[in-house]
């Protein structure tokens, strides 16, 4: 067991402190070079550094390389390559506005290393009912899963601290589930995602000093998706991610096409005089999770964030219950 504990501790410390110490200088560099965007939910004209994905990917790559030194698993290589590719895709989108299909298609291509490295199992495990063997279908699932998790996290990155805070909850939940399933190596490999998210949350939480940008959000989402695949916990991962999945589902089912948020003309939310957020009655605007939360009345950005975190914790509990149900068969 000690051979697992030491790499786990080293990688978690590295994941946390690499992000913790590289983000402040990154903020300064981005601000100096005018890589900033307006925080739309602040009364004052506040400019925030973006993208923070650079420090996120640095934390992930450093910690996963160290873990590879200990374990030499193809699964770790798949995580490093696919996550880095997702970062590059997001970075391109941060720098140059791409079309709605750019990210899904390129993220699908970014998932290919998982297949080439054979870092997957074609069994899809369901609670209560057991496994199903879907060899060819599973390859399609891999290609679809990374764009879905990547864009799902990206779509929830709408308020200060939400994407990183949500990832803290979802990724630690996934790690707990992997430990429950006694998949210890992948559980340890998954831990850096939680610690990277936690360190980044310190600077991303309200009031944000930096935004992750598409590069950060896609990095979070893609790594989460790869862990789900290499750990064989696809269904559990989807359940832990439910609030974000619901957000994407509501968005797509109301807009009825794959489109970038910035291309949508209707505004789902607007500001009150005291700069709280409230839902609009604009029928052309997409239905989103934030808009649904706001139907109860106007809330501050912080209150909405905490409501999303409560939903994430609830989904996390459901994911853990599902994991326990994996051991039960009807």
């Amino acid at each position: 067991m000690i051979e697992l504990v030491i790499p786990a501790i080293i990688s978690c410390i590295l994941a946390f402190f690499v992000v913790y110490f590289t983000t402040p200088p990154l903020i300064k560099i981005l601000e100096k070079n005018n890589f900033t965007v307006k925080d739309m939910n602040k009364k004052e004209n506040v400019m925030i550094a973006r993208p923070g994905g650079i420090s996120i990917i640095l934390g992930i790559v450093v910690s996963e390389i160290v873990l590879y030194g200990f374990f030499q698993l193809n699964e770790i290589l798949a995580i490093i390559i696919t996550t880095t590719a997702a970062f590059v895709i997001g970075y391109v989108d941060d720098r140059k506005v791409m079309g709605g299909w750019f990210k899904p298609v390129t993220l699908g291509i970014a998932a290919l290393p998982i297949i080439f490295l054979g870092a997957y199992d074609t069994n899809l495990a369901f609670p209560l009912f057991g496994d199903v063997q879907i060899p060819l279908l599973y390859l399609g699932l891999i290609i679809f899963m990374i764009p879905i998790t990547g864009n799902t996290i990206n779509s929830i990155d709408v308020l200060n601290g939400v994407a990183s805070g949500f990832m803290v909850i979802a990724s630690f939940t996934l790690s707990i589930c992997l430990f429950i399933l006694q998949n210890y190596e992948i559980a340890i490999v998954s831990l850096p995602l939680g610690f990277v998210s936690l360190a980044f949350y310190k600077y991303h939480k309200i009031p944000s000093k930096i935004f992750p940008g598409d590069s950060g959000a896609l990095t979070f989402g893609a790594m989460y998706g790869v862990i789900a695949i290499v750990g064989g916990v696809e269904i559990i991962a989807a359940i832990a991610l439910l609030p974000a999945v619901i957000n994407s589902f509501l968005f797509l089912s109301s807009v009825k096409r794959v489109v970038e948020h910035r291309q949508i003309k209707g505004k789902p939310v607007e500001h009150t005089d005291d700069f709280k957020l409230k839902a609009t009655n604009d029928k052309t605007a997409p239905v989103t999770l934030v808009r649904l939360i706001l139907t109860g009345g106007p809330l501050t950005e912080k209150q909405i964030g905490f409501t999303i975190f409560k939903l994430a914790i609830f989904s996390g509990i459901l994911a853990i219950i599902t994991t326990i149900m994996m051991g039960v068969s009807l």
Partner: protein
Amino acid sequence: MWVLIIIGGGIVVTLLGPISISGYGEFNWFIGSVIKGIIAIILVVMWILILSKLKNWIFKKELKF
């Protein structure tokens, strides 16, 4: 949504799992996979439709979107 996922899982395991094709030699697994894929896509479409109806049913009256 959680309940739908678990029920969907049950359908996948009990319906898709036992499907196996024989008589086509090396292509057995491929044809089996294609059939499983088609059924899976149908299930996903059904899942999205049910979820969409549920969403409309729950929110339409209250939200007036």
